[in-house]
């Protein structure tokens, strides 16, 4: 018998789902432990939310699509305000676009969709907000009964679907497509099971024409974002290499420069004067932090970083060409001091602004890793400076090294600077600055008025990092030559090895913080400093090469544990409109007050106590202070990052 078509009735799917697809998708993305959504790459999450909105509208009979286009069939508003805005946007478009074009176009609305969906889930009594986490209210994992219907929550439904051969419900097909595009299955299934059900997932996700486009769009967008991220990482890393290269070579040529610019009958006096100029560099840092922080918050990170590289490169050129005391008398040391001050200001702005740029450009799931390339760049720069310094002093005769070798080292720094400038000018336009409006007039005043607590917390946290770095990576080589039998070249080589180790450990630490959480990693590393500094110094004090190597490696691990997490942790702690200013000032204040003074304090402590391990107690005490600061630190909501 042939049944004849009857008059169409209202779509039955309109009332089929009390919980919308966007809400179901968010529940899928919610981590059971910790109640966070952030483990999914941002692009995938945005694609998923945009796709969920489209599929929701399709299931509600408002839009339709085929293999080529997507269009509105019924512009009547739904019961969801967030979907209505999407529907209005599609209705207003005169041309029929492909589903993947709509996903890309709606992605910027993902944060709004997410916020509204979360609010609805909380209002429905499915989730409750606890601090920054979202927890299930219903332990039974069934949605509240609405319209006489009770449904098992999405995760359970689609997991059941993966393990049977049943014909799926269209909404579950959409949910599988969303979950697959965002990598939810990789997180909730063990690798073997994931591989087993792979063909079933691929079969199901194809069944919804919009759903199948989500994975494709997410993949394309992720590829583009990764490429942009790589460009930013290179630009951020290279700038720090350049700026800290100078730090490395100045340490190497301090004695020669002392003779050239501060001639004295007593070589020790000229060396002291030369190191005094080194310290002047630290004084410039808080000032540079304010200037470049202000620039970064007012005109964008890219502009601030281009300016800071120039401020470093030009004085580097002048130092390389500077006339000596013998040529122009007292003007020579004055010029050197002014140039070092400029370089200090440049470093003050560069390090933290590059941290901000890196973290802001990264997807939320990779902020730790991407941010860690700022300190990695600093380590690479110091290592390069040490290598160039060692190569010049090792390969050239002493006379040539003193006459022009040191100048060559500085001029090589200029070459790096020009390369960095080219890389930075090619950076894409700063997207963050478009969104900044709150502190247009005075980021510095706003930062001190609204974020002074965070600035103090950053200073408190940086205490350990600053003291740890200058104690273990700068002063330690002097300490080793004084209190062990190791010679200066050996201690410098060990130092270079540790910088090399940092290059490996920093990205690993950054990636680890993306998994275990930044605060947890900071607390572990700070506790390590508080408890292990004295035993590690005891080990190093034995003086054998193995003991020193092990001790220094221990410090490298602890240092990387903090350094790697610092960019993402501090950037996430600050609102974007004063981020550069507040972060730069807080960080550089600690470095200037506690980092730069380490050699002096260490010498004074040993002299006062007669105990050669006294500096280790200083570092342990600092770590204890930082530990308390971090312990009491409550992070702002995720939305603050923007």
């Amino acid at each position, binding site marked *: 018998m042939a049944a004849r078509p009857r008059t169409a009735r209202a779509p039955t799917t309109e009332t089929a789902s009390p919980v919308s697809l966007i809400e179901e998708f968010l529940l899928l993305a919610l981590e059971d432990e910790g109640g966070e959504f952030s483990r999914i790459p941002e692009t995938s999450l945005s694609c998923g939310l945009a796709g969920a909105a489209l599929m929701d509208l399709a*299931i509600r009979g408002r839009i339709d699509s085929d293999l080529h286009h997507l269009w509105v069939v019924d512009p009547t508003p739904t019961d969801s305000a967030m979907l209505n805005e999407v529907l209005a946007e599609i209705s207003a478009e005169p041309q029929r676009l492909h589903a993947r074009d709509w996903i890309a176009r709606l992605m910027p609305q993902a944060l709004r969709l997410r916020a509204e969906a979360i609010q609805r889930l909380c209002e429905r009594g499915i989730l409750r907000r606890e601090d920054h986490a979202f927890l299930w209210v219903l332990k039974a994992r069934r949605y509240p009964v609405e319209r006489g219907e009770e449904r098992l929550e999405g995760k359970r439904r689609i997991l059941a679907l993966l393990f049977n051969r049943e014909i799926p419900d269209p909404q579950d097909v959409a949910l599988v497509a969303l979950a697959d595009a965002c990598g939810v299955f990789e997180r909730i299934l063990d690798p073997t099971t994931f591989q087993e059900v792979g063909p079933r997932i691929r079969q199901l996700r194809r069944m919804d024409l919009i759903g199948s486009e989500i994975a494709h769009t997410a993949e394309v967008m992720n590829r583009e974002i990764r490429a942009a991220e790589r460009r930013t990482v290179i630009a951020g890393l290279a700038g720090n290499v350049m700026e800290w290269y100078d730090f490395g070579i100045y340490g190497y040529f301090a004695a020669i420069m002392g003779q050239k610019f501060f001639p004295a009958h007593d070589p020790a006096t000229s060396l002291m004067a030369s190191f005094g100029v080194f310290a002047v560099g630290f004084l410039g840092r808080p000032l540079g932090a304010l200037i470049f922080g202000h620039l970064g918050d007012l005109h964008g990170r890219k502009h601030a970083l281009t300016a800071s590289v120039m401020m470093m490169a030009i004085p580097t050129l002048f130092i390389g060409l500077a006339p000596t005391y013998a040529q122009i008398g007292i003007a020579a040391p004055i010029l050197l001091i002014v140039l070092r001050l400029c370089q200090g200001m440049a470093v003050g702005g560069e390090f933290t602004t590059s941290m901000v740029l890196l973290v802001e450009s990264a997807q939320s799931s990779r902020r730790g890793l991407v941010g860690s390339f700022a300190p990695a760049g600093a380590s690479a720069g110091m290592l390069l400076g040490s290598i160039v310094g060692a190569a010049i002093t090792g390969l050239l005769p002493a006379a040539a090294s003193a006459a022009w070798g040191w100048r060559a080292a500085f001029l090589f720094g200029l070459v790096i600077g020009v390369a960095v400038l080219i890389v930075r000018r090619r950076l894409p336009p700063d997207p963050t600055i478009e969104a900044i409006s709150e502190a247009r007039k005075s980021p510095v005043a706003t930062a001190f008025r609204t974020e002074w607590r965070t600035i103090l917390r950053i200073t408190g946290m940086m205490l350990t990092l600053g003291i740890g770095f200058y104690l273990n990576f700068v002063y330690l080589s002097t300490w080793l030559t004084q209190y062990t039998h190791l010679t200066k070249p050996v201690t410098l080589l060990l130092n270079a090895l540790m910088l090399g180790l940092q290059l490996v450990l920093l990205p690993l630490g950054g990636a680890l913080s993306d998994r275990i959480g930044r605060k947890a990693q900071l607390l572990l590393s700070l506790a390590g400093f508080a408890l292990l500094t004295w035993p590690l110094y005891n080990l190093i004090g034995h003086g054998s090469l193995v003991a020193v190597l092990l001790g220094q490696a221990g410090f490298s691990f602890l240092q990387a544990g903090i350094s790697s997490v610092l960019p993402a942790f501090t950037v996430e702690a600050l609102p974007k409109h004063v981020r550069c200013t507040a972060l730069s000032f807080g960080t550089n204040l600690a470095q200037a007050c506690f980092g730069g003074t380490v050699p002096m304090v260490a010498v004074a402590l040993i002299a006062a106590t007669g105990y050669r391990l006294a500096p280790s107690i200083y570092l342990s005490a600092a770590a204890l202070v930082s530990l308390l600061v971090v312990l009491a630190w409550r992070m702002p909501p995720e939305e603050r990052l923007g």
Partner: protein
Amino acid sequence: MSEEIQILRPNGRLDSASSPALERQAFDCIDAGARLLLIDFVGLDYISSAGLRAALSVAKRMSAAGGRLALCSLSPQVAEVFEISGVDAIIEIHPSAESATERLMAG
């Protein structure tokens, strides 16, 4: 419960406008006890994602009722949509009404 094959023949386009009607008709047949249902697409020249979703819903309802659903006589354009979406792997599709009837009757 009927062992007779119920046949539905949608015409023209199966999209968001027409698929709810087809879906309802099919559901009515299933609810009335039909356990062998053939949807003959011979007069259909276009299917959208809404139509595909309707086919899936009907297949699910029939499967839950313990019956069989088959589709037949798909135009190349319509067949392409079923093939790309992979729905052809879970719904019986036959080249003609005759072959579909024969297979459904054969059990």
